[in-house]
């Protein structure tokens, strides 16, 4: 089989010329909602602690409660802002022979996973993700669990389409027929 990638010029082959697809807007909304509601829950805990009289509070901690409420609000706001700003930096791209994921506002990371080296794929959906129709794609190579390639915040049908694209990729098909070292 001819290698079709060869006819492209080298600048097109470079990962620097990749146009990334951004993650689903629903993912941004979900993350922001989680951040806002957990901040609110934390603040509520402090408020309740200030007004209830069931639990004996340690000396001086009541005076610190307003600060704790303000602190958790500020922290929540910072995280909220960070999620908003970091979201446009996240993106994925699927090329003929590899998967790419980029992320990071201050610390930018580009991970490139050649399809040839993929061991297996998993689609994971938490209860909240299921509710808004999202899914995360996990791609495992022999590089180990700590180097799992993951794309979060995909629409569920995008994730399944990606999975079948990878599974039907000829690099993986070839390995199957060679039947050399699969362990499952």
């Amino acid at each position, binding site marked *: 089989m001819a290698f079709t990638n060869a006819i492209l010029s080298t600048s097109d082959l470079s990962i620097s010329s990749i146009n990334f697809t951004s993650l689903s807007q629903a993912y941004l909304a979900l993350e922001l909602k989680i951040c806002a509601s957990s901040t609110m829950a934390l603040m509520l805990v402090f408020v309740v602690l200030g007004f209830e009289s069931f639990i004996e509070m340690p000396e001086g901690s009541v005076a610190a409660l307003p600060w704790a409420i303000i602190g958790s609000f500020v922290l929540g706001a910072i995280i909220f802002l960070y999620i908003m700003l970091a979201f446009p930096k996240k993106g994925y791209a699927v090329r003929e022979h590899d998967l790419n994921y980029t992320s990071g506002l201050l610390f930018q990371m580009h*991970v490139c996973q050649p399809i040839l080296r993929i061991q297996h794929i998993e689609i994971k959906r938490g209860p909240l993700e299921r509710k808004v129709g999202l899914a995360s794609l996990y791609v495992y190579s022999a590089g180990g669990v700590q180097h799992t390639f993951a794309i979060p915040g995909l629409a569920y049908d995008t994730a399944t389409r990606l999975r079948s694209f990878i599974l039907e990729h000829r690099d993986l098909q070839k390995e199957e027929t060679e039947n050399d070292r699969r362990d499952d």
Partner: protein
Amino acid sequence: MIESDTAVKTEHRYANWTRAEPIALAYFFVSIVYIFATNFLIYLIPVVVLQRETLTANGAFVGVLTSVLIVFFAVLALIKFWFYQFKLGENRIEIKQGIFKKSHLDLPFEKIQNVKIEQPLYYRLNQYAMVELETAGSVGSEARIVAMNLEEAHTFKTQVMLFQKEAPAINKADTQESTLESNKEVLLNTRTITDLIIHGITNNRVWIFFGAAAPFYNTFVDSFSQILTIVGFDITQYLDYASLSLAMFLLHVLSLFMFTMLLLVAFSVIASLFVFYKFRLSRLDDKYIRRSGLINKQEISLKKSRIQHAVQQQDWLDIIINRANLKLAQNSAGLPGDQTSLNSTNKLVVPSITPRQSNSLIEDVFNFNGINEVAFLPVSKRIIMRYLLFPILPILIVLLAIVLSVQATLGIWFGYITICIVLVSLAIVRWYRWGYFIKGDHIVIRKGLFGKDIHIFNRHKTQQIKLAQTIFMRKYKKASVRFVLASSAHLIPYIDDQIALSMLDETLLTLERDKPAWM
């Protein structure tokens, strides 16, 4: 091929479901006792220490309890032995075991990555061996033939290895090599006792010793101070520094320190001798085989194509006496057990060799000439800045806060400034150690602080590549590349982002176009 008498006999003998040799009873017994001791008994040590009087008073009860336990373990071992059966087919091994949780393992030979023959002490009397089978994806599954005649074990191993050779070669380089099959084992390296003593001194192998002795720490410390008291050395009086001048006190601390170090080094040397005694590294066709061990003899073999990276490690003492440890690492993902252990089969360690020997071994494994004469390219000096920002700056701020909170004398300030200077120079040394070198398929990375590690790998074995850049790095057009291999990840930090990018693109190109195998 497998035409020797023993091989035929072996096949015949284990063709049906067979129980292991009776010596396996000893194995099961020891393993049960070991599990009991490590999971249960060690937690009783504090109780024993605190309730020593009560225990000695009820000596009879303790004795009866111990014998009941021993009988119980023996019966358990017998049952385990009874339920353990295995069967050797022409191209597969099957193992059935378990009392309540039964398991049936069916393992085709071509999936076996490694065959490890082990001889615990109690097997050596009658020349028996334990055969451990390792597969790429076996997480925690026990694939081992618990007892086999040593000779049969070796025949079995040859049989499995031969089978692997028949499997279709997947690497171009491999095919070329296997046409030159010689079936002759070539000796590559041996280590003398002197080498091992050097290894024990330069490398802290104490933890092997202490790891094994962990359950006995308290007893050890107790009896140690007892011995000292007997020889007329009262440690509390010795350390009663209120009655001593500062100089005397420091002298005592120093001598105690030296004494401890001496003791540690002695233990380390012993441990080194235990593990590496009669070390032989040889090559049989495309396999590297390491044999060593004083009490537990070990044989580890590693297929050349499965070696992912090699690292030549030198700590400062090694650099002074011009020695190095060489580690050949293979796929470690999904392998069970302690990955750092010297005995783990995913690494093959050649202890305390000279750089010249290291050169020739690396040339043999990687086809790379002169690993110790490589002209490394430096990484950007900006990395020093990065080390200064983290972790050095936070440390200095915390220290400064402490200095300010006490009534700081001139001496304390002097000390603080000294620490500043030391930390900054450490950052500079760290930068100085970083170096990388790329030639064709090979990537060589040097790093370290006091010591020096040189890593080498073929980039076609890359599993995944990561490119990282902070906003500060982007300003100066620097980036870090990380090559993830099946054995571990290798970082080249703070290089020009164009170089990083082309390195990455080239690697991807060869990987995706030529589709080279990594195992």
